[in-house]
């Protein structure tokens, strides 16, 4: 059902939250019902009880949790994010359809912060193979924080997205100027279709007289070394002509 040790993550989050929230908020988190009638409201209410900042003295606190869940950059999670992930991990997951419906409802009614943490939490949902359409839907968003949550430091897309959706994500990341170094699994999932689209995109940028993120060449060069080299030199030429014109 879960692709990770859920009991261990629950324990670690709860230890973390105990240290980083008020006694009242922590006890609310432990005792509030996360049944279908309450989770929507409680997921929102958490925003009024937990800090939206990263905890003080973060690095030490993350050593233990990072040691066990190294695929996630916990240093970029706020206390509230952690509390909401904890709520998600409490959901009854044995009934597959009901579980998926419940989480889908959360997505549909989410505010900005909720939406972001829901996408950040994709790697921690039960039935991981069932969320690729939701992930692809998130990539269609125009909300910068949502795109960041999916594209950057998230190991769900590279593990579960089918090739077409993965390629869309990478193209959109390039198109919206994301830091490609933060996309997990980028090298591992390079492919011919993606490289072809990136080369086309590079031609377009060239025609428009605009520059391009040099990070894309690592995705095209191994598959199309000749074409890559020609385009790279054209960009260099364009830059030097631009400098000369100035």
């Amino acid at each position, binding site marked *: 059902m879960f692709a990770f040790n859920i009991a261990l993550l629950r324990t670690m989050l709860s230890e973390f939250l105990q240290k980083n929230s008020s006694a009242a908020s922590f006890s609310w988190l432990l005792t509030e019902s996360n049944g279908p009638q309450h989770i*929507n*409201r409680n997921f*929102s*209410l958490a*925003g*009024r009880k937990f800090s*939206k*900042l*990263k905890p003080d003295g973060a690095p030490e606190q993350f050593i233990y949790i990072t040691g066990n869940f190294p695929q996630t*950059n916990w240093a*970029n*999670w*706020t206390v509230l*994010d952690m509390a909401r992930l904890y709520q998600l991990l409490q959901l009854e997951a044995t009934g597959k359809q009901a579980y998926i419906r419940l989480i889908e409802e959360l997505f*549909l*009614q*989410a*505010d*900005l*912060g*909720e*939406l*972001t943490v829901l996408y950040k939490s994709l790697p921690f949902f039960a039935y991981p193979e069932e969320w690729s359409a939701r992930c692809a839907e998130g990539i269609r968003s*125009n*909300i*910068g*924080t949502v795109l*960041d949550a999916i594209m*950057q*430091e998230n190991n769900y897309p590279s593990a579960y997205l089918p090739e077409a959706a993965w390629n869309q994500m990478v193209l959109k990341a390039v198109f*919206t*100027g*994301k*830091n490609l170094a*933060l996309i997990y699994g980028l090298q591992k999932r390079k492919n011919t279709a993606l490289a072809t689209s990136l080369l086309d995109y590079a031609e377009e940028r060239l025609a428009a007289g605009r520059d391009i993120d040099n990070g894309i060449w690592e995705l095209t060069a191994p598959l199309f070394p000749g074409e890559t080299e020609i385009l790279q030199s054209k960009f260099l030429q364009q830059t030097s002509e631009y400098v000369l014109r100035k």
Partner: protein
Amino acid sequence: MCCGNNDIEKRAELPDAVDMELIKDMCFFDPHVHMTSRTTDDYQAMADNGIVALIEPSFWLGQPRTHVGTFADYYSSLLGWERFRSSQFGIKHYCTIGLNSREANNEALAEAVMALLPTFIYKEGVVGIGEIGFDDQTALEEKYYRLQLELAREAALPVQVHTPHRDKKKGTQRSMDIALEHQLDPSMVIIDHNNEETVEEVLNRGFWAAFTIYPFTKMGNERMVEIIRQYGSERIMINSAADWGISDPLAVPKTAMLMKKRGIDAATIKAVTYDNAIAAFGQSGQIDPNDFANGMAINQSEKFENNSILRGGQQPRIAKGSIIIQ
């Protein structure tokens, strides 16, 4: 004559031309503006004119909705997309959630929307229930106004009350009577769209009095200046209520310019264009002025965590005066 360009030139020479000098170093909070209906040009202009935060009340979109799902999507878009869009211009976006009076007249739909509201009112940045109240002053409008007042009381949220265009004075009195009947503290209720005829009673009964500077159909800002002279600044706030009609998203800064020009003191201007809105809606516990008082960029680096791209006011600018588009 071609295209009215002469008129535009003439306007620049008017004694009442926009003068940014008058509002130098001021910042503004517009507690009622429907950004969903506005363009990015408006956001840019608002930011340029010192608006640092705003409240977008839920309202009627100009044509009645017929499915509850469109309400859910509308509330979600206020809390998601619109909030993000606003942040790109360095403006902190809050909203109020409610069933507006016009659509309260479709009973089956209104029932479904009422069932939806509790999942939205605890979302981040929801600073009240609104805008609710009377339009035609029908029995159904009254029914859902009352139910939403109850919801506000349970949730301890302020209420933003729309008062009707027609039969305004009676409608306003009735709105206040009903709020008191439901044991709401008047200090938690903002009565909106006031005019010379309604203001005195609203203030005397302890409610907040909001004024909408909206050309032709609501208040003009010269009248507003006179009201400030007469009643002072206590519990008074100004908004634009800019929407899909002929309205002005710069109504708050422009009125500040006019007040300054006509000798209203700085503390009064600040109270009615900034402080009072924060005091009234801040009772929701959802407004921290530190989030916008010194610009939003600082805050965003905290709020949106690992997101280095998003910074308030960093949207690329279009060179408006040039025929070249790059």
